[in-house]
């Protein structure tokens, strides 16, 4: 376990920035306590100072996880967000999309979101912006990348892909062993 280097911090925050914009500041600078990012075996954890101090007592080899796992670095040094970060990101989401109940299952199985399955889409979504996916009960069920801007979506036909799937809550079951 160690703090992130500058490049790593840039990669992580840059990725989160795509979803919540300048609200990243609120993740780093919290009023209810000090929170920080730590890296352990390529995984990036978002952790409070309190828990961090406790976790320091566990040897590195044995330490499996702590705090909230935000994602992991690939071997090529890119950062990938995981579903586990969803609960931290969702409250600050800038771009949102609501799915119809029929399309919800498809998304939870790991498929992209088609125009036909969209019930609502927040305004001013840019192309390739990070977008949080909600179901009709306003529960965040995953996130992805907007394949089209809001304006383009209006004129798109029902079979076009609107959101590229990145992570969904279904992964808690599907990727149970690799998710941590």
């Amino acid at each position, binding site marked *: 376990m*160690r703090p992130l280097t500058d490049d790593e911090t840039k990669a992580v925050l840059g990725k989160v*920035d795509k979803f919540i914009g300048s609200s990243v500041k609120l993740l780093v600078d919290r009023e209810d306590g000090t929170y920080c990012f730590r890296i352990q075996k390529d995984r990036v954890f978002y952790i409070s100072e309190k828990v961090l101090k406790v976790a320091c007592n566990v040897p590195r080899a044995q330490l499996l996880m702590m705090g909230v796992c935000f994602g992991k670095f690939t071997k090529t040094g890119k950062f990938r967000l995981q579903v586990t970060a969803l609960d931290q990101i969702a409250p600050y989401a800038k771009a949102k999309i609501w799915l119809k109940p029929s399309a919800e299952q498809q998304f939870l199985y790991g498929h992209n979101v088609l125009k036909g399955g969209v019930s609502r889409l927040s305004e001013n979504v840019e192309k390739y912006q990070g977008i949080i996916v909600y179901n009709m009960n306003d529960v965040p069920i995953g996130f992805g990348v907007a394949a089209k801007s809001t304006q383009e979506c209006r004129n798109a036909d029902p079979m076009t892909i609107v959101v590229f799937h990145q992570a969904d809550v279904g992964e808690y079951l599907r990727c149970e062993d690799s998710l941590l």
Partner: protein
Amino acid sequence: MTTRVEDILGLNGETEEVFKTINVEKPLDCEFDIGELLVVDPNAIEEYKFKQNETDYVDNLSRDNVQLLINELFKIPTEVKEDTVVFQLPKPVTRIPREKPCPKPKPLTKWEEYRKKKGLRPAKKEKLVWDEASKEWKPRYGMKRINSEKEVWAIPVPETADPMVDQFKLMREKKKERIAKNEFQRLRNIQRAHKIDKFAVSSVMPTDKPTPELMSKAAAVAKGSTASLGKFDRKLALEKEAKIKGKKRKFVDNIGSISTEKERTMKILDELNHSRPKLNYARVVEKQMKKDVKEEIRQKKEKKRGTRSSKKLGNKKAAIKMAKLNRIKGKAKGAKGKKRR
């Protein structure tokens, strides 16, 4: 014993069957590019024949097409050169994509970039220049050029200068300096073109006063500068293994000062915010598009209002009706007024 050619070839009267006709007929004409010796057959494959016997079908098809190519070839006038019949192939028509990617434009030097930015055009300079002193045309650059340092036989000593300084030496030094400066700029341009951030600085730089420590370090660096990092180099009798230690990675303390860590993160966040473009082109375009659509709809509505004559007429009718009503009302009012009076 007479031997016929047919007997030797083993074809007894079967010539007509064995040698197929040179006239090949196809529903669609083939396209030729004789320059590339290319035939393109646009005819569809007859599937039932193809399925019966694939190899035969392909063989026959290719024979026919080659026959067509040969027929086409023999339409070209032939020559005899050194006892051989020779064709002169026409130029190929088919355009084949180039093998290598297009060459990239040469990166501009710093001066060229400046010139482009300013819109300056290089002044046209003649190669030969008139030399007043020798009354001769002389080249601007190169051997026997005008204003050559070699031809200067006297230099007036400036009043402010030290009279004991050798002016010729000074001139030579100045020229050397100019050459060095130019070389430096040339290298800098190459560096810029390759986008190297800094000049490569070796860990061991040449010095005037080498110390034993520095020398051993230089020797170690030189040893490790082969393709195998010095693994297969011949060693001297008492030579020690040269070890060059790499830089060790250093990370920030895990639970040092979290407030400084927060500062560091905030700094990176600021950088991220700065790198974000102030003007979002996609959004601006989107807004403009929305505006345009609205404007179009409005214009259409206006146009509709203008053309609908019945509505206009209706309005006119309504207006007349209203006027009549008003008149009646007015009369009534007037009557009332009269009564009151």
